[in-house]
């Protein structure tokens, strides 16, 4: 039967958008190219100045926490890809680390090195993407094309490793599924050798660009108190004068063995955040060079283990499963029923490119997490817009959303 077209009354029909106090309510989004996803901002305007901002989120809510409660732990891994889909390995890693802490696993060194390489490649990809989209929002199309070109090289490397370009699922609970491919180190080195010149190119285009400076300097100033109160992390916090990097302060993996600096600034404005992203890319490159050396040391010392050995929780290697009866039985149970971590709770924070990515898991001993809370940095970086935007003008909204670097897969989860 054909559907008869009918017009349902929208429930907001009675709201007057032009009010007596000369205040205009402007809906910014949810379909706005510079809102980086599905952000709806309700802005109260006096002329062109914002007097009140009300971010409205939830347009990409998929109920990941609920999904997690009805999945075995390994099943949830591909779902984490869809949180911060710009750097999906860092989500995979955060979840894997939380479960490993819960069951008390120790990951082999070679897997740790590969994980660190993946994490830093993801950080570079994320920062390049940030630079590209923010520059594009502000009108610098050239930077967008250049930065996407570099990001493409990294995506190729990742694609060679795990077959996927965006949603990697490249990390498993207990290690990594595969060793890196033969061309990985070569490709990475070629990229890293070019990167300093590339970053310099972007900076030449932007650092002294009058338009860029006018849109960035003294705009969107986040004070230290505000950043702490709003639970800001990552570059948002470091641009506001707190040198807090979880990789440095609460090192996980082998971050205590590599040498890198934590760039920070006291300014708190858009430009400070931009500078921090640029410097962090250089630091990531530094870490990656050290990772390459660490990996070659692993090869030299013949450390070939990639997955932790823990028959109760982790399947044996493919070779064992195919040749040994008991490994096959274990694998069967772990795939059909899932691992059953001990009863307890864990909160593990990792430094994702956007900030502190935390996984809180409450396990009641079952094969499904009893409660899993995803602490995504972008959620709070969107919340801070409530306090940050008033006083600014409409064009500033675009540059502020840009430098907060929010990704809505993560905000809405």
């Amino acid at each position, binding site marked *: 039967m054909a559907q008869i077209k009918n017009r349902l009354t929208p429930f907001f029909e009675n709201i007057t958008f032009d009010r007596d106090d000369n205040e205009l309510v402007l809906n910014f989004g949810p379909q706005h190219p510079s809102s980086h996803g599905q952000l709806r901002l309700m802005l109260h305007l006096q002329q062109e100045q914002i007097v009140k901002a009300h971010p409205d989120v939830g347009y990409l809510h998929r109920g990941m926490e609920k999904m997690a409660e009805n999945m075995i732990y390994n099943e949830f891994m591909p779902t984490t890809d869809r949180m911060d889909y710009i750097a999906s390995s860092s989500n995979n890693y955060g979840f894997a680390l939380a479960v490993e802490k819960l069951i008390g696993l120790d990951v082999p060194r070679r897997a740790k090195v590969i994980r660190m390489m993946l994490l830093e490649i993801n950080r570079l990809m994320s920062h390049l993407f940030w630079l590209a989209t923010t520059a594009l929002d502000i009108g610098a199309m050239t930077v967008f094309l250049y930065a996407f070109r570099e990001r493409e090289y990294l995506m190729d490397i990742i694609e060679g490793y795990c077959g996927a370009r965006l949603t990697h699922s490249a990390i498993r609970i207990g290690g990594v599924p595969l060793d890196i491919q033969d061309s990985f180190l070569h*490709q990475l080195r070629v990229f890293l050798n070019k990167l300093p010149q590339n970053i310099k190119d972007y900076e030449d285009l932007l650092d002294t660009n009058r338009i860029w400076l006018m849109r960035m300097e003294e705009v969107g100033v986040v004070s230290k108190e505000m950043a702490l109160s709003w639970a800001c992390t990552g570059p948002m916090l470091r641009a506001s004068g707190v040198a807090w990097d979880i990789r440095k302060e609460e090192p996980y993996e082998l971050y205590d063995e590599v040498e890198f600096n934590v760039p920070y600034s006291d300014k708190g404005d858009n430009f400070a955040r931009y500078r921090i992203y640029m410097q962090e890319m250089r630091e990531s490159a530094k870490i990656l060079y050290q990772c390459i050396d660490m990996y070659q040391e692993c090869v030299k010392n013949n450390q070939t283990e990639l997955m932790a050995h823990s028959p109760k929780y982790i399947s044996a290697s493919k070779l064992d499963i195919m040749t040994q009866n008991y490994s096959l039985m274990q694998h069967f149970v772990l795939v059909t029923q899932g691992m059953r971590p001990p009863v307890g709770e864990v909160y593990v924070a990792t430094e994702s490119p956007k900030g502190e990515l935390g996984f809180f898991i409450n396990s009641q001993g079952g094969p499904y997490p009893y409660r899993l809370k995803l*602490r995504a940095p972008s959620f709070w970086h969107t919340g801070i817009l409530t306090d940050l935007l008033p006083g600014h003008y409409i064009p500033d909204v675009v540059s502020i959303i840009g430098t907060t670097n929010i990704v809505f897969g993560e905000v809405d989860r």
Partner: protein
Amino acid sequence: MRAYTPKDNVQKKSYYTDRFYVSPQVPKQVVESDEVFAADLAAIKSKFDVLDAYIQVGQMVVFINPQDNYKVLELLRDDLEYTQLSEMSAIDFIAQKNSFEVFYQMLSMNKRKRIRIKMTIKNGAAVNSVEPLFRSADWAEREMFDMFGIEANGHPFMKRILMPYDWQGNPLLKTYPLQGDEFAAWYEVDKIYGKEAREEIGPEIRDTARVDRYDSNRFSRLGHEVPKGTEITGDEPVVEQSYQEDGGVFLIKKFDRESSVVIDDPQR
């Protein structure tokens, strides 16, 4: 006899559970094993009741009375240097003990320590809002309200945040069904036109990829295009759609499958 399904927890159940399996516990350490945590706990204990405290996976967990939450967090922020409320939410234990556990995940950057303040509240009870202490609680408490229906007293804007404002139910409760309501498509029709109009209006079309072959207004008859508004009879001629104009376009080469090259060298 029909299988019994508990109504207070409709979540997925493991299909096999060994009756004699005893789950191991994540090891807990006493608070005294860490100097910093011991000092913090002593400071909390001097002013408030502490129901339980231990260290698990490197973080201290402190159980307090729910009415103390604001004061405890104020003490933590002002005197004990826990300057960030990283996260807060609740855990549904309605089926087991008719209560929720609310947790506050705190971070001290100066001490490099994280602690978790937990409290048990009865089903239906509200908590004191800590939004005046930490702005991050603004959105966190709204999310908790959205997902569990736990209200925070004194919160400036206690509205749903992720779900639509007019949503019914709280998705993270264990009683919340995992499958959608199959009659939901009719609710709007029933409300506006009445049940008898169902026949006439028909079900809502939710398939975004649906192509109506009789639709001559919306260009959905790919390869079978007809002028707008044409009466469809079914024997319209097939229109061959070529990728580019036959005569070619100025400056643009015609795409030719025969002469194209596939680059298969990843190094290029």
